[in-house]
């Protein structure tokens, strides 16, 4: 909402200055978005007379002019088609900043002719979009004066953000009223002269709605005007409209726009000569009705849109936009003026369906002053009469009686809700200044909100009005006390798991990224997603159409971006949601990571080593360890989803629940991303990890042996199909008390090893518990181990 300082003073009688007003506006909820003073920008532009015009010797479309500012003469090259001898226009000297072009003028030669400045268009001064020629000033204009004085531009423009509840402040008067309530002056009376009109209106209303639907148009007023002169508006009016970004068109249109900004009351003007018949009908549209709007577009209407029609059909979309056919034009002499109240919900729905925005719709949707149609009929008539002449008719109207809204209010609620103590008299005075009517019955107030505040419908709204004007700074600042509480952890186990996992991964060289929850359809399909229920109706681009079924594609994209700008070795992880369906239970939190390139970089010390399956496996194991997965419960399977390499991927499960998928990404996908090296990734479904038993916090007692551990090494030949880890499992099972660790030292296939066999070398750590083991006991243990490998894996000791 834009308005000017002088405009505000039309409604507000005040001895406060601009900066005091600007300081108060945000305190009462009217946030100042900008303050611009055109006069400041335009002070170097001066009025001149063109005293000589000659054709440019080297350019057909240019003229070389001499301009005179009352003292000095300047040579100027000018390309405007309307330049002529004796004309008065606007001149910018060398060094002047031209706001419309965003440049500072330099002395220049244009095709060999020197130019000492510039004659300007309205666009160059940011006065309008008009760039068809240079500004033509009144012949009587004095020379050498600043243009802001001649054009009366010395009026700061204030823009404020209006929240959706404050439709009343979409007019300058509403803002003045709020300022007055906040002690910034007094609200002037609106200058309304009641004039009932001289003749019966040429056009009449017909509200063609069922009784139970009359609420869609509870009020509509109109009156006819004749013998009008619809010229250009006077300068003051044009300047005000320009200042608030309304393009001046013609007097009648300008006046309706002016009143909309002035008191927040949209109006519509019909050309009576173009209305077919004598009746304007307010009704609901039928599907297929067509309507050509003033913006030049044609709209096909749906059922149940509120429209106004004459005998030729629909030519006004109620509260949103008038029609082209019956619109006011330059030579209009007879005009019918409409001011109505329409149901905001209906207006909003229609506007949204047609995707049609207008200043009128904006105001109707936010709710208008219910009493405004009556008042504006007189307010507008006086203004039209003054500017366009002519006469006007009696008023024709339809209205439903509206019951006044009343709210029962216990003033104690102010303290209860906000903690600020305000004297009852002060509260009452604030409300009354805002236009509320109060009838006290004992300690309960019966409050009637003013007609321009349809947003007020409860006790909390009234509290806000009072504390808003009283000042939010008067609300005390109270610390939240702990009362009956003991300190509790803020994080749930799930949050802690993500917190720890992130740290483990970053410590292992991963960089955390955050990527969009959506991706393109092809990738969603590739990663087993892409279901209809997870497809966006209105994606922002064709690359972001589907909710992601996995974070792996996002991370591959991240790798791709970095590879494209020259990065070599990359490790990324993300903690975030994936989507299997559109219900809350189908949103799954995962920790997902990708590694690409070298684990060890080649340097003077060592050769390069690439990341492989086993690096990722280790990453997964470290994360699972950290987030409390009981090691023994994990089982490994080789049935990872289709986007992994079928031979180089695995799944960790606890029972039936998948805890992690990991391994090389399928080579086809790696190709698809254009990678030259393989990518290895994992996804951990940490929500599937069984929660630890909460009651068991203490640890089992630590038993430490003082006896030296003993190690023994063995090498076995087994079938190559047997998973190597099985050897460790069998070895451990020999004596769970004594054997504390078994690690694989070597896996070997080839020379000296039979076909389809492999050699596994292990190191077994034996920790005596109570006494040193005798050679015999050790020998027995070894024999047991060898026998177990033979029995369970058909393996045998390798001869060395």
């Amino acid at each position: 909402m834009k308005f000017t300082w002088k405009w505000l003073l039309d409604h507000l009688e005040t001895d406060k200055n601009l900066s005091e007003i600007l300081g108060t506006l945000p305190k009462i909820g009217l946030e100042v978005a900008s303050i611009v003073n055109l006069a400041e920008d335009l002070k170097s532009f001066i009025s001149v007379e063109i005293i000589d015009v000659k054709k440019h010797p080297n350019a057909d479309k240019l003229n070389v002019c001499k301009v005179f500012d009352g003292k000095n003469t300047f040579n100027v090259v000018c390309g405007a088609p309307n330049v002529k001898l004796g004309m008065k226009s606007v001149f910018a000297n060398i060094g002047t900043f031209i706001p419309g072009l965003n440049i500072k003028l330099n002395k220049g030669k244009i095709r060999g002719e020197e130019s000492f400045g510039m004659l300007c268009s309205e666009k160059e001064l940011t006065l309008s979009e008009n760039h068809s020629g240079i500004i033509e000033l009144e012949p009587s204009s004095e020379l050498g004066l600043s243009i802001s004085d001649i054009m009366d531009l010395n009026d700061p423009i204030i823009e404020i953000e209006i929240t959706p509840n404050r439709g009343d402040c979409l007019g300058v008067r509403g803002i003045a009223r709020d300022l007055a309530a906040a002690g910034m002056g007094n609200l002037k009376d609106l200058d309304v002269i009641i004039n009932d009109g001289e003749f019966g209106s040429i056009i009449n209303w017909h509200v063609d709605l069922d009784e139970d639907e009359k609420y869609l148009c509870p009020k509509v007023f109109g009156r006819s005007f004749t013998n009008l002169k619809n010229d250009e508006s006077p300068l003051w009016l044009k300047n005000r409209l320009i200042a608030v970004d309304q393009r001046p068109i013609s007097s009648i249109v300008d006046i309706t726009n002016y009143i909309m900004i002035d008191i927040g009351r949209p109006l519509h003007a019909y050309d009576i000569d173009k209305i077919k018949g004598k009746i304007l009908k307010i009704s609901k549209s039928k599907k297929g009705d067509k309507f050509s709007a003033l913006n030049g577009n044609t709209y096909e209407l749906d059922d149940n849109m509120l429209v106004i029609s004459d005998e030729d059909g629909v030519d006004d979309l109620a509260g949103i936009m008038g029609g082209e056919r019956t619109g006011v034009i330059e030579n209009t002499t007879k005009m019918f003026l409409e001011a109505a109240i329409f149901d905001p919900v209906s207006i909003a729905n229609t506007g949204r369906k047609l995707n049609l925005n207008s200043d009128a719709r904006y105001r109707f949707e936010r709710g208008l002053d219910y009493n405004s149609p009556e008042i504006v009929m007189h307010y507008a008539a006086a203004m039209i009469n003054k500017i366009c002449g002519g006469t006007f008719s009696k008023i024709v109207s339809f209205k439903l009686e509206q019951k006044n809204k009343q709210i029962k209010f216990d003033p104690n609620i102010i303290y209860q809700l906000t903690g600020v103590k305000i004297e009852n008299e002060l509260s009452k005075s604030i409300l009354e200044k805002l236009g509320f009517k109060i009838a006290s019955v004992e300690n309960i107030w019966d409050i009637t909100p003013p007609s321009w505040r349809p947003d007020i419908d409860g006790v909390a709204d009234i509290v806000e009005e009072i504390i808003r004007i009283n000042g939010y700074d008067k609300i005390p600042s109270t610390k939240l006390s702990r009362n009956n509480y003991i300190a509790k952890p803020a994080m749930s186990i799930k949050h802690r798991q993500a917190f720890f996992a992130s740290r483990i991964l970053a410590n292992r060289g991963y960089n955390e990224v955050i990527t969009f929850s959506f991706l393109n359809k092809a990738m969603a399909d590739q990663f087993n997603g892409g279901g209809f229920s997870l497809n966006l109706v209105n994606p922002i681009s064709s690359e972001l159409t589907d909710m992601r079924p996995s974070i792996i594609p996002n991370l591959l994209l991240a790798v791709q971006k970095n590879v494209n700008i020259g990065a070599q070795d990359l490790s990324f992880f993300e903690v975030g949601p994936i989507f299997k369906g559109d219900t809350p239970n189908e949103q799954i939190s995962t920790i997902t990571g990708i590694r690409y390139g070298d684990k060890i970089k080649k340097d003077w010390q060592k050769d390069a080593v690439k990341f492989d399956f086993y690096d990722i496996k280790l990453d997964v194991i470290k994360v699972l360890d950290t987030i409390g997965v009981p090691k023994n419960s994990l089982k490994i399977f080789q049935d990872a989803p289709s986007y992994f390499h079928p031979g180089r991927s695995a799944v960790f499960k606890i029972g039936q629940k998948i805890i992690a998928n990991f391994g090389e990404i399928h080579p086809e996908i790696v190709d698809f991303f254009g990678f030259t090296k393989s990518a290895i990734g994992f996804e951990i479904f940490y929500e599937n990890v069984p929660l630890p038993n909460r009651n068991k916090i203490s640890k089992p007692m630590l038993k430490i042996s003082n006896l030296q551990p003993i190690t023994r090494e063995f090498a076995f030949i087994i079938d190559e199909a047997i998973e190597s880890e099985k050897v460790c499992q069998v070895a451990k099972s020999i004596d769970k008390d004594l054997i504390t660790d078994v690690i694989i030292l070597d896996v070997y296939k080839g020379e000296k090893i039979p076909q389809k066999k492999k050699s596994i070398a292990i190191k077994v750590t034996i920790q005596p518990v109570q006494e040193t083991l005798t050679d015999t006991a050790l020998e027995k243990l070894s024999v047991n181990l060898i026998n177990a490998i033979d029995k369970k894996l058909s393996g045998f000791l390798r001869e060395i």
Partner: protein
Amino acid sequence: MVSELKEDLQNLLNNITISIQNSKSSSDLENIRVNSLGKKGSITLYLRNLRDYDLEIKKEIGAYLNDIKSQINKLIIDKKSVFKKEHLEKKLKSEKIDVSLTPSEAEIGTLHPLSRTIEELCAIFADMGFCIVDGPDIESDYYNFTALNIPEEHPARQEHDTFYLQPDVNGQRKVLRTHTSPVQIRTMEKIDLKSFDEIRYIIPGRTYRSDHDATHSPMFHQCEGLVLGKNINMGHLKGCLIEFCRTYFNEDNLPVRFRPSYFPFTEPSAEVDIGCKKENDGSLVIGEGEDWLEILGSGMVHPRVLQGVGIDPSKYQGFAFGMGLERLTMLKYGIPDLRPFYDSDLRWLKHYGFIPVDNPSLHSGLNGVFS
């Protein structure tokens, strides 16, 4: 007689001392030791020859000889340790390496600045007794709008630029939540009024709006807060949020301003500004100067919202707030541009990311500076 003998011995000692001093190696020393103190060594022989003298002389010279013997021993040991030291020094010198070399190593990774901000927020609000909760990114129209007092035709809906998912068989279309506020409704629905006293929740999470330009991302993050109890008033809202702003920005006297505003789900509503100075280059200095910067929205939970979840607004009241986390992160850590947050550019992540060993907490400090 005695003095002659003593003189002889003294000469002998002098000669041995000189040869010890002139020795070049441990083996030289060993030879000297054998030649003087060995079985056939000069000192040993001298001792042996004492048999032929008187007891008196024997006694006196014997003591003298023993003294000389221990002197020689000491000289040899001392000289030996000198050799040992020289040998070690030589050896160490030969072991010298080029310390200017540094091997390459897999670098430690970083945590995203947004995660950092979320953790800082959690630390601050945890100290005030809040718990972290979350809710789904895909929401029904009811939770995202209607239950928050934003009916279908409400003008505020237009400001939300909502993403819609394909409609189901009943024509209902889910939305990507446009704010974290629907989780307010979900948490309040779960309240068991029989045992209810007070709740304090914060809800950080992903939010979505179909807007993409220099200052808007189709996905961004918010943190919602909700406090509900019997005696929670707007003074608590103020106290809580002032404490938050000052702690987060680490400015004891940070000016914090509450300004009337409007949100459909709170009444009264307030926007919160912090004091700052806008520099000519467009950067901001938090806590100085005359300008104000809006950083969050808040208000008392609207009675209609409470009624909607079955809570009697005459018995319980509370406040809610919401803030954009990207903005908070950018302000605190001087990150000039929003878009790279989601670009996964390693250079950006390394520059603005945080080292994983720095856990934000109130006892170790919230300002991540060691990355």
